[in-house]
């Protein structure tokens, strides 16, 4: 793995409820380099909350704590909102699941991208327009001039998502957190959006955190995968080895997918075990890096 962009140690997100404190994320640790890091898990596993916590987007009364949460060696844990806003966008950007809710419906797309760019670069407007056009072209929008003057409801879901990515990339962030960026898209559009993100990681050396529930997609798209269960990482594994995962939870998830090439009458059902909640992490890289004798 290349240099570490983002380092997270023992990240916890807790929400006080009537029944006591609910921990949505319970001690997550990982390092992100210039790579595509997949985070998979079921709903409620804390994968989205991890992304939000890194960006300081956990709303009160939610509390974020960590031993370490550093971006390029600088702590970004619980920064005041004003400083966090400077980091969001210029250093870390986020793409949400549904572009419909992330774009302002009454502002032209071009204006929104230029606004995003200007906020972080603080340069002249002519420059911003060029940059916006360039970004739209970078996300493979064929007619950027026309799209600049369109309103969000005038574009399709796939194009909306590409525009979101363009907007997030305008200020040239080092890290992109994509929370289920393709779940609302059709399969044919999905490939395009993924290609764009893939190229950005390769060409710009960005770090990508790709949050998804789709194991197959993550296995094919990412370099490394964290599997989350009940607020913890239960296994980290090279994406290409995902299908040989060792944790019973990961195996269970993989098996429960229907497959066209292997018809069965009944799908295997995941039997959850309480021990998974607190069992130690299965980390493939640790085992491969450390000789067995140690």
């Amino acid at each position, binding site marked *: 793995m290349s240099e570490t962009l983002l380092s997270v140690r023992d990240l916890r997100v807790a929400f006080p409820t009537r029944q006591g404190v609910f921990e949505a994320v319970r001690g997550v640790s990982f390092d992100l380099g210039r790579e595509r890091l997949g985070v998979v898990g*079921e*709903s409620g596993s804390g994968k989205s909350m991890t992304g939000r916590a890194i960006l300081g987007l956990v709303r009160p009364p939610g509390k974020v704590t960590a031993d370490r949460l550093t971006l390029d060696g600088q702590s970004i844990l619980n920064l005041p909102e004003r400083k966090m806003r400077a980091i969001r966008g210029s250093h870390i950007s986020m793409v949400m699941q549904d572009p419909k809710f992330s774009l302002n419906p009454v502002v032209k797309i071009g204006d929104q991208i230029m606004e995003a760019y200007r906020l972080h670069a603080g340069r002249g407007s002519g420059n911003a327009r060029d940059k916006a056009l360039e970004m739209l072209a970078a996300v493979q929008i064929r007619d950027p001039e026309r799209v600049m003057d369109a309103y969000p409801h005038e574009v399709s*879901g796939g194009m909306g998502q590409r525009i979101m990515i363009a907007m997030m990339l305008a200020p040239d962030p080092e890290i992109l957190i994509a929370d289920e960026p393709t779940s609302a898209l*059709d*399969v*044919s559009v*999905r*490939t395009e959006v*993924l*290609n764009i993100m*893939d*190229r950005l990681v390769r060409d710009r050396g960005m770090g990508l955190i790709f949050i998804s*529930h789709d*194991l*197959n*997609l993550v296995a*094919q*798209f990412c370099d490394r995968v964290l599997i989350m269960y009940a607020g913890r990482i239960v296994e980290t594994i090279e994406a290409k080895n995902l299908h040989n995962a060792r944790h019973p939870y990961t195996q*269970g*998830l993989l098996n*429960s*997918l*229907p*497959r*066209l*090439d292997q*018809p*069965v*009458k*009944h*799908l*295997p*059902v*995941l039997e959850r075990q309480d021990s998974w909640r607190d069992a130690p992490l299965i980390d493939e890289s640790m085992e491969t890096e450390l000789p067995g004798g140690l």
Partner: protein
Amino acid sequence: MLTVEGLDVWFGYPPDRVDAVQDASFTVAQGESFGLVGESGSGKSTILRAIAGLIDTWSGRIVVDDQQVEGRRRDRAFHKTVQMVFQDPYASLHPRHSVDRVLSETLKLQGMDDIDRRVQRLLDDVGLGRGFRFRYPHQLSGGQRQRVAIARALAAEPRLLLLDEPTSALDVSVQAEILNLMTDLRAEHGLTYVMVSHDLAVVGHMCDRLAVMQGGRIVEVMKVEDLRQGAASEAYTKSLIEASAGYVRA
């Protein structure tokens, strides 16, 4: 069991008229499980809604159990024959009605007696225990809600179930449970399924035959065996199968 012939469905009036489905025809035999596959906007859910009588702007012929239906009007016999399970279990249950209320109201509407026992039976059928009977939707997980929705559909003891993406809002492990449940229920009650999905693997798992839709038209009707072998005759179907297989780095 179900025949659809030359079905057109449209929304709005000219010049803003949108033709959601154009000239769709297919038949589903008694006891068969038939899939409708396509991307969003292809009109697959619209067909189900037209059959169920939730849309009245359609033309063509829909014959259910040898009875031709018209517009939005459906008689009691239709509701006893055809039921539907919706995509989003968070939207298909009334937020202020408990499971008990949902099921017993349904049973009453269907003119059933011995409601107390039947509610219990339905809950057992869909694998929810006694403890769930008096819960409200917000006390249930997505999978449990979808089980309640299935129980509601089964209450009428229908023979044809229209399934509108019944698992697309659920986690894969829960999807497996629900799909298994539907497989079992079909075998047990001799049900006929028409299942809409964007997921080829799910349709491949559940159905015998499927129709592939694009832009409101049915491009191809094929057997699931052919789908498994990738033996599609239309280019669109082939591209769909390829895209569903997963992401291949460009």
